[in-house]
């Protein structure tokens, strides 16, 4: 290793030769090029439009054990909020559970037997709102709507001597149970998060093929017989895809702003600068994989092997804090985890460089390790 670095130093003309060649090949390979631009767009549309982050008219079951005027007002209020469609009436707790389990309803509202009695005594009775939170984004807004109802609707009925029960706090407690998923993802997480997911997927996959393709087509033998240096090949193959990565980032940012009205309150140039590190991180993973894989198929499999934990453990699919510690530890090692924090932090919270710095160095460390493995694994011979 020391020897070949000593003998052959990095030269710009050879590096540039690789860059030019990769650009030409990228342009000729219509399918791959289309995939690089098309896949993010399709995903964006699917994720962005198909996921309505503020859904209304969700099917709701009501179990009114207490048949009082207050109950009726509440039910009327729920119906009117437009978040709930009272499609079912239940007569027992068991029935409610079945409906939730069988996916018949998204919500179930239980008004307990002594609801009005306790309300009148000022004892703050419980109103149970159960939600099927397998799809958590559907739940958040509706839950908030119930709290609203609590104060506005019931206060209408608290008249005369009951006025004293009116309070700034609702006269009863809403106990809300979210079944199946304890934490909700906020709607705007999706589009910025998608940027990280897209970059991870396309960058690793495409560069994963970069060196294995040369080996499979036999062009590697030729390349190795020239004085080209491993670092020139590896970095030369990375550069064109940095460009592609930026095209993807720009597309997603434009779509986030103009198609999905994601509030972008942060510093976009800062984000664009930091994206570079994340793109490079993924490219080095891909290149390293392609120095290890024996053929293109293996490289693809390795790309997916890396992509899946990234998708699942980074906090994109499931809330990071909701994962067990071991999973969080794995997540901390993945660049996507840190990038999601950076991109959400900058775009949604308006974070600056100081706030995102703790998530920068882990990515930088990751790049250094991957690059070292990649250059070490890159064979200068065919043995």
């Amino acid at each position, binding site marked *: 290793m020391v020897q070949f670095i000593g*003998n052959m130093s990095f030269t710009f003309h050879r590096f*540039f030769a690789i860059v030019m060649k990769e650009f030409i090949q990228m342009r000729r390979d219509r399918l791959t090029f289309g995939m690089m631009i098309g896949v993010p767009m399709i995903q964006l549309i699917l994720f962005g439009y198909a996921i309505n982050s503020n859904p209304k008219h969700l099917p709701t079951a009501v179990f009114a054990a207490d048949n009082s005027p207050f109950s009726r007002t509440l039910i009327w209020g729920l119906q009117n909020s437009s978040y709930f469609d009272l499609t079912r009436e239940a007569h027992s707790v068991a029935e409610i559970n079945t409906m939730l389990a069988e996916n018949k309803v998204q919500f179930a509202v239980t008004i307990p037997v002594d609801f009005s009695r306790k309300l009148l005594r000022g004892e703050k009775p419980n109103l149970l709102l159960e939600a099927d939170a397998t799809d958590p984004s559907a739940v958040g807004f509706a839950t908030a709507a119930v709290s609203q109802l609590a104060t506005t609707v019931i206060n209408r009925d608290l008249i005369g001597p009951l006025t004293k029960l009116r309070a700034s706090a609702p006269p009863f407690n809403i106990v809300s149970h979210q079944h199946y998923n304890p934490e909700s993802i906020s709607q705007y997480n999706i589009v910025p998060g998608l940027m990280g997911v897209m970059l991870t997927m396309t960058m690793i996959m495409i560069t994963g093929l970069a060196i294995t393709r040369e080996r499979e087509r036999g062009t590697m*033998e030729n390349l190795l017989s020239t004085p080209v240096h491993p670092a020139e090949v590896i970095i030369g193959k990375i550069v064109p895809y940095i460009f592609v990565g930026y095209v993807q980032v720009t597309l997603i940012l434009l779509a986030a702003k103009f198609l999905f009205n994601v509030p972008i309150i942060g510093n976009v140039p800062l984000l664009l600068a930091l994206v570079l590190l994340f793109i490079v991180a993924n490219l080095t993973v891909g290149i390293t994989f392609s120095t290890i894989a024996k053929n293109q198929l293996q490289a693809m499999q390795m790309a997916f092997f890396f992509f899946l934990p990234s998708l699942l453990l980074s906090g994109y699919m499931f809330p990071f804090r909701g994962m067990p510690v071991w999973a969080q530890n794995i997540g901390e090692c993945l660049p996507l985890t840190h990038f999601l924090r950076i991109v959400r932090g900058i775009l949604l919270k308006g974070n600056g460089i100081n706030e995102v710095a703790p998530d920068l160095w882990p990515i930088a460390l990751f790049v250094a390790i991957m690059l070292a493995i990649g250059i070490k694994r890159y064979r200068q011979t065919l043995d």
Partner: protein
Amino acid sequence: MSSAFAIDVRGVTKKFGTRTVVNNIAMQVRPGEIYGFLGPNGSGKTTFLRMLCGLLTPDGGEGKCLGLDFRRESPEIKKRVGYMTQKFSFYEDLSIEENLEFIARLYGMPNRKAAVQKSLERLGMVERRKQLAGALSGGWKQRLALAACLIHEPQLLLLDEPTAGVDPKARREFWDEIHQLAAGGLTVLITTHYMDEASRCHRLAYIAYGNLLAHGTVAEVVKFGGLTTWEISGDNLAALADKIRKLPGVEQVVAFGTALHVSGRDEKKLSASLAPFMTGSQRWEKIEAGLEDVFISLMETAKDNYA
């Protein structure tokens, strides 16, 4: 150059796992020489060439290539060597011109545009420069590969079966060009399976099963082979061939259109065995052994010794 040879290596050995593919080979090639490298399939020719230009790490051996230590200075050697692979290994999705430009850039040619232009002209591909390399016919691919190997003006050319599948006229042109280049001082080490090409080399080496069996000029190799060959022409050659094939001293019986070549290393035994048949209507003549017969004979011997 510290050595009088362009290639001067000894004891070159390569193992793949436990199999020795190149076994203790020595080779000396003079500057400006066209050196033929022959041997049956899988005998280790490609492996040897790859070791010379640093594509494979030898398991043993020492020596110089262009005056540089071939095991330690391969980065420097690569700059001075043009290696044409057995399988076409330029980019099929790049045009002729783009491939040449790429190679010229990799070698840091000071006058890249001119070098590419010159190369295109010599190839006769100026009009087709924009054509994708993948769309070329086999013969044209070989010519492109040769041109690309020459673009950085190497001192040594390693050509691995450059004319496999090329038509006779194109092959002749190819060889004319090789001779021109050699006359200009370029050293060429070339592998081939064609006997006519072997005889166009200044000197040659023959390997089988990784072992060097013979080397020298064509005449020297033929002499070294020590074969006696009889050419028989006339009628009923097929019947005759059947009768003599199993006789003592007869090693090869090769049928040509109108003649039969019978050869063996032990001249006395061969002549004794053949004498009873020389009475017929056929014409018998002792000729000089062909290179092919010599190689086959060498290989048979090697099979007994090594395999």
